[in-house]
């Protein structure tokens, strides 16, 4: 198992290098000019110097290597400096955003908490709702609960977040006026009152994202439970006289969770991508919104870095899912 994990991790390096190259080359084709906003009164030679200052004067391959150096060496060193108060990255050039003129990583660090709060919370809520639904629908297959559950998850699967999000805004903000439609990031939780406000503004984005998660995971949970409920070991457990609760919640559930856990792991990076739309609807200024504004503002270093971070997350969680599968299920041997 350890050799397998190490092999996968080593193999991830060329994959990630290739992905970063693909993203870089794609952005290289961008027609937009970051100097387009500069007033026409600025003389051309000054403009040329500004281009050089942005790091645009050099050929493509040199800029790619420079970006890699900055991303993989300078930024981690900078993180170590920040964490331990050392000075490794003193005087090193960092990845700079064109629209904010500040290091990309600093901006990302500012936006990360909002995304993590909303997205991670919704994922947890979604899983917590999905698991009991999946278990009970499988246990009472074809019952009314199962039929309704299947229908609701089908709907949750089919209604895109840009409709469900707008719909809950119409109902709860416009018509009823219960919840705020815009996520206020400047809100600081200091007392009970502000905690309540924070909770209220989180409810809608979290529920919209959670609906998608719930739909996928409860279907998976149900299918996986159904696979196990008819196995011989379940009959053995019942024949031994174990209580129904023990049979279902201990024997069957533990075996059914194996594929579900890997699906949950695989879904983590997807939620960052899917959050782009939800963040746009509820005006959460998180990572997804940062990416959209960066794309619109032609801020190539920002787009490159954020997209690459998402790619790293996807590759990493793919490995986590595969390794988890092997750890949890001894029948699967990779070596």
């Amino acid at each position: 198992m350890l050799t397998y994990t190490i092999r996968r991790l080593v193999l991830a390096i060329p994959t990630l290098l290739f992905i970063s190259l693909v993203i870089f080359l794609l952005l290289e084709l961008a027609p937009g000019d970051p100097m387009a906003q500069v007033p026409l009164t600025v003389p051309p030679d000054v403009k040329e110097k500004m281009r050089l200052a942005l790091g645009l004067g050099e050929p493509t391959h040199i800029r790619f290597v420079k970006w890699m150096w900055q991303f993989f060496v300078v930024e981690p060193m900078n993180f170590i400096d920040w964490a331990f108060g050392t000075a490794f990255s003193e005087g090193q050039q960092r990845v700079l955003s064109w629209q904010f003129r500040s290091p990309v990583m600093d901006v990302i660090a500012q936006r990360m908490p909002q995304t993590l709060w909303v997205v991670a919370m919704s994922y947890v809520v979604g899983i917590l709702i999905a698991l009991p639904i999946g278990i009970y629908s499988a246990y009472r297959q074809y019952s009314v609960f199962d039929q309704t559950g299947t229908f609701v998850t089908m709907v949750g699967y089919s209604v895109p977040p840009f409709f469900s999000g707008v719909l809950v805004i119409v109902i709860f903000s416009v018509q009823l006026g219960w919840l705020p439609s815009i996520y206020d990031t400047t809100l600081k939780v200091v007392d009970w009152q502000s905690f309540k406000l924070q909770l209220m503004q989180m409810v809608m984005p979290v529920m919209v994202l959670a609906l998608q998660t719930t739909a996928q995971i409860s279907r998976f949970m149900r299918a996986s439970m159904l696979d196990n409920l008819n196995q011989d070991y379940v009959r053995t457990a019942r024949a031994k006289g174990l209580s129904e609760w023990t049979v279902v919640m201990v024997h069957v559930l533990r075996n059914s969770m194996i594929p579900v856990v890997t699906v949950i792991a695989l879904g983590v990076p997807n939620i960052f991508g899917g959050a782009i739309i939800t963040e746009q609807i509820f005006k959460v200024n998180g990572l997804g919104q940062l990416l959209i504004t960066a794309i619109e503002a032609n801020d190539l270093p920002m787009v490159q870095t954020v997209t690459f971070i998402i790619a790293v997350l996807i590759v990493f969680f793919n490995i986590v899912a595969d390794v988890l599968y092997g750890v949890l299920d001894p029948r699967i041997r990779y070596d």
Partner: protein
Amino acid sequence: MTDTPDPKPIAALADTGPTAPPRSQWRDVWDQFKTHRGALAGSIVLFFIIAAVFIGPSLWPHDASFIDILARNKGPSLGHPFGTDQLGRDMLARMMAGGQTSIAVGLTAMLLALGLGSLVGVLAGFFRRLDGPLMRLTDLFLSLPLLPLLLVMVLLFRETLSGLFGPETGIFILIVVAIGVTSWMPTARIVRGDVLALKEREFILAARSIGTTNYNLITRHILPNVASPIMVSATLGIANAIITESALSFLGLGFPPDFPTWGRLLNDATQYLQDYPERVFWPGLAISLTVLSINYMGDGLRDALDPRIRGR
């Protein structure tokens, strides 16, 4: 004493010949499909939506792009059942026009993704030498952040393609290609798995032993046998493509503003959310209903095409 009766043939052993007329495979599939109520309802709803969207405009008097500025922002009435938008255009006509684009994008992108996916899957499964590289490529595509890349692609190439083919055709080609290129991977994986299993079967060996060429082997023996998983992923592919196109349009990176699609209409309506919340409802409902019915159809099709479930 008593006479032994003549030995009568045992009734059960008598050969009566087939009682039912022979049934074709597709008849069986249809019978199984009919028993799935959700799938049946889904296909009826989908058929209705497609008919309304493609036949409707020729029956409906209003044009999708006709601006009647005096009748703007009207609520639902007999003349305009869905009301009018901020320029006085009839919402029902715009919904139908938008549906044509959305469904056309969904179908074309699905066909592209399916073609690419089946090609990669069959090649990887059939030719052992291609298996490694092609599957690594599939894994690579699966680990790309798709939505951000789609956004970047659409943003980068829209000017060029609009210039080449005109604004509408250009964006159509761009969106279809972008969605197709980013969604072929699941099909490729499923098809490869099935081809790998089929390749070891006796009928392939028999076909090969009479000297069938690889091309004929694939087109006549392999492809018909992987048709059912391809069909199932086709239905899911349409749903996925419609959602992706609407998401792009919703983010303002899809079709040009005067060219309606369901996602675009939803995006336009969100700007008037405070004053006319009901305008959001129809495009969103259309997208959700279409996708829901397609998903149900795919579910039923999966059951109907699986011979282990069929007939039970």
